């Protein structure tokens, strides 16, 4: 990337970063009613066009994802091929959401309209060849078709697993695992100043994903240590391969939490449930992303950090809008926005 492109990207990121929500803004948003929110975020036409709460919620979700991916498209313009590849690899999670919707639709024999209603409209460089996949009349045919394209690695493994086990859980776990493994592969393509900040950023995200998957697979789904380990994608940060090998062998939720390395041990010391862990790890990733956005000299890492933070903000906004659409109480909405802590008596032992 030329110095002019780098300056352009850094300026773009800096300008876009002014849109990120601070805690005070989140607090004030939580007080707003639906019309005020819609007005502030230019969602009024969407709410007026759609009739049912479900279709309104879907339209808002679609609009927010399009907003995020639109910004992604702007940010990748000045990037080099490798930088662009890593950011697009991150954005492809939305293509995999579509793939999962297609697979679920085919598995449950839903009609095309219903499947189509659940797909996100994505930019060309992220989306799957949906029209072709739509032509498939069962999961196997769908995965065979996907195997012919750029998602061949994900599709082949998913097909083999589906052929052996015929269960959606294994299929979706394989898709997620291949997605994160692909993201790591893209990061490791760098051999310059971008490598370390990207490792930190993606590593923090993998720490979060690994810990959540580990706790769920081991203690909620009761998978064996070796099966659990196989589903994880070692992080380049705290939860690296050797540490995961040790953690999956532990026999209780609490022992896993107690054995975490700093700073996760202190961060999660009070965590009793997977939901607590999810909440704290979300904050941990946000903190790392903010640090990189503020301090890193790497343009691509700053851009990716911005996109991750923006995604969190948009999900938060979506949670708020959905809460209002469903007339949920403000206490429940505040919990979703992480303004207040949940007080439900569900214990970690139950989660395990």
């Amino acid at each position, binding site marked *: 990337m030329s110095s002019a492109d780098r300056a352009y990207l850094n300026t773009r990121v800096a300008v876009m970063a002014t849109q990120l929500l601070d805690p005070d803004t989140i607090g004030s948003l939580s007080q707003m009613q639906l019309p005020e929110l819609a007005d502030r975020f230019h969602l009024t036409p969407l709410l007026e066009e759609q009739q049912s709460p479900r279709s309104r919620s879907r339209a808002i979700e679609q609009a927010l994802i399009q907003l995020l991916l639109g910004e992604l498209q702007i940010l990748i313009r000045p990037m080099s091929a490798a930088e662009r590849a890593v950011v697009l690899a991150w954005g492809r999670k939305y293509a995999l959401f579509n793939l999962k919707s297609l697979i679920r639709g085919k598995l449950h024999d839903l009609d095309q309209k219903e499947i189509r209603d659940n797909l996100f409209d994505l930019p060309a460089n992220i989306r799957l060849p949906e029209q072709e996949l739509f032509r498939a009349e069962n999961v196997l045919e769908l995965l*065979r078709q996907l195997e012919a394209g750029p998602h061949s690695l994900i599709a082949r493994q998913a097909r083999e697993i589906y052929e052996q086990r015929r269960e959606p859980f294994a299929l979706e776990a394989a898709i997620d695992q291949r997605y994160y493994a692909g993201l790591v592969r893209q990061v490791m393509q760098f051999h310059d100043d971008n490598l370390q900040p990207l490792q930190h950023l993606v590593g923090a995200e993998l720490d979060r994903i690994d810990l959540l998957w580990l706790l769920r697979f081991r203690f909620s789904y009761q998978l064996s240590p070796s099966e659990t380990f196989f589903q994880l994608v070692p992080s380049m940060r705290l939860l690296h391969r050797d540490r995961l090998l040790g953690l999956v062998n532990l026999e209780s939720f609490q022992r896993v939490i107690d054995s975490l390395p700093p700073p996760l041990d202190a961060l999660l010391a009070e965590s009793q449930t997977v939901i607590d862990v999810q909440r704290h790890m979300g904050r941990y990733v946000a903190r790392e992303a903010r640090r990189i956005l503020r301090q890193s000299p790497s343009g691509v890492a700053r851009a990716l950090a911005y996109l991750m933070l923006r995604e969190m903000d948009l999900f938060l906004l979506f949670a708020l809008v959905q809460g209002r659409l469903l007339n949920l109480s403000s206490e429940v909405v505040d919990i979703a926005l992480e303004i207040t802590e949940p007080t439900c008596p569900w214990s970690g032992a139950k989660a395990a």
Partner: protein
Amino acid sequence: MLRPRPMKHVRLLVLTEDLPQASLALAQTESFHPDTRPPTESRLTGLPGRDYRDRYNQARSRLDKIAKLIDVPVEEEIQEVRVVELDELSALNDWLGQIWQKTSRYEEDLRRLDDQDRFVREQEAALENFQHLNIDLGMLRSRTRFLDFYVGIVPRENLRQLEGAVALADHLLHLYMQRGENAHVVIVGPTGTKETQLSAVLNAAGFQPIPIPDTLDETPEQIHNELEAQRQDIRDHREGVFQRLSEWSRGFSDRLVEARRTLRLAEPLVTLDPSLHSAGHLAYLAGWVPASEVDGLAGRLRETLSLPFEVQARDPLPEERKLVPTVPVRSRLLQPFALLVKQYGVPEYGEVDPTPLFAVTFLLMFGSMFGDVGQGAVIAALGWYFRTKLGRFGLFGVMAGLSSVAFGFLYGSIFGYEHVLPALWMSPIHDPILMLKIALGYGVVFLVIACLLAIYNRVVIRNWSGAVFGHHGLVNLVFYLSLVWGGLNLGTRGAFGNLPTILVIASLGALAWYNWRHLEAPLGEKVLVVFIETLETIIGYVSNTLSFLRVAAFSLNHVALSIAVFTLANMMGAFGHILTVILGNLFVLVLEGGIVMIQVMRLQYYEGFSRYFSGDGHEFAPLRLRRGTAPS
């Protein structure tokens, strides 16, 4: 010729039962470009073509997939045009669904055989590898009292993770070979309680065990023969699958051809789907039709529709101008130039179509910059010889070559020889200053025409202020002509002249005043922007005019290159002379010909189109019935 064909907006109301018939009739006229805007009537909320479209798409997709495995003969041209009703389309879709269901089983069989074949190759490679080991491999065949063995292949990307996972189940993984995307491994561990755990992991990792044959202690050749026999067996199976498929499909092959024909007949209604709206039994569709074809279209509908319908045609509204499609140039001679214009954009409806002007100025400039009878004739001959491969560009080559030949006669140049052919006018090198003057004059005329067209394009859409004060508008033209006038005075009389000076200052003042009024910015920024824009107007017109000097420069360059070639040739013997002249001509033809082409395109796009041609229109694409014999 420069003006677009007048268009009408046509609104058609028919009964939904008549929609398939109406779509066919419209497709047959080949003059209806659908307008996808929703109707203004709020009650027309139904989408009458949606079911039809969904069935069609599914049927079409099924037929395409079937045709990949079963040879569907190319059908002959559709002779009898008939209506395909929704019921017929649904029945066809269901039938194709049944056929695809069975065909996909054959497809899956073939894929499985491919996987087996790949696996046998892996097995062969593995056993070849074992051959060099000095251990009793028979032990790997079955588990022992204390040890479990797994020999097999696993996708390479899963290797590292699998290694850790098997270690957690107290097993060891040893990698002994990597081939393509697969890794060959041996996993060994104690017989005991963790087998179930391991088996789940191996499944998740896509592990495929390689069977160790009982006959492993036989000679390598025997083992190889056995594996070859397995592969032969797979080949036989594959042939068997194809044979069964062929026999099975023979019974309905004609029906598949008929299915393709039926889908082609159904296609027009599917294409119309985004334009179709309805309320109850009343369907609405709208589109753009060339004004001269409206009566023919209405007549065709009267002939074919049995139920009542209504056609209304009106002129396009001013605000619809951007939506009206432009009918492309039809002249065969202009077709190749139209393609080059299209690279820049399609004329907006109402805008002057620059293709004829482009063609004339292109040929003039190319010929004058590359005037040579011999080389022009070569270009024309090549264009003619490769006309089938080059398509429309073949004719383009012929015309460019002929223009070069014509100017070659004027310059008296043939293959670079300047004294063989008597010049009808003169060689450019004889009076370079005159050539530069002519080029400059040509540039002035070109830019004036471009400005006039820009003014015309704005007047047509009643953009009066744009026509007077806009970029390359009337005030700009006055400024430019005054500048040219003053320049001529300066060259001939040594003074710019009072009237041209007054006109230049007045026109620049008017432009600055207009910019000032239309700029919303702080005072300092306004001053800066207006000053820079005024300066840019002066510099722009001067530099754009000088840009045309390249026309003369390249005509001189052509002669100079030829002189260089002949100087080199004269330094050689007889054979060397001929060879140098031939190679030199080839060099000039390829290199200079290419550069001249690029320079002409640059002048056209940058000095011409950027002044008067928006290129923001879209092409007229009428609904058509594909009758051809080519497979879709």
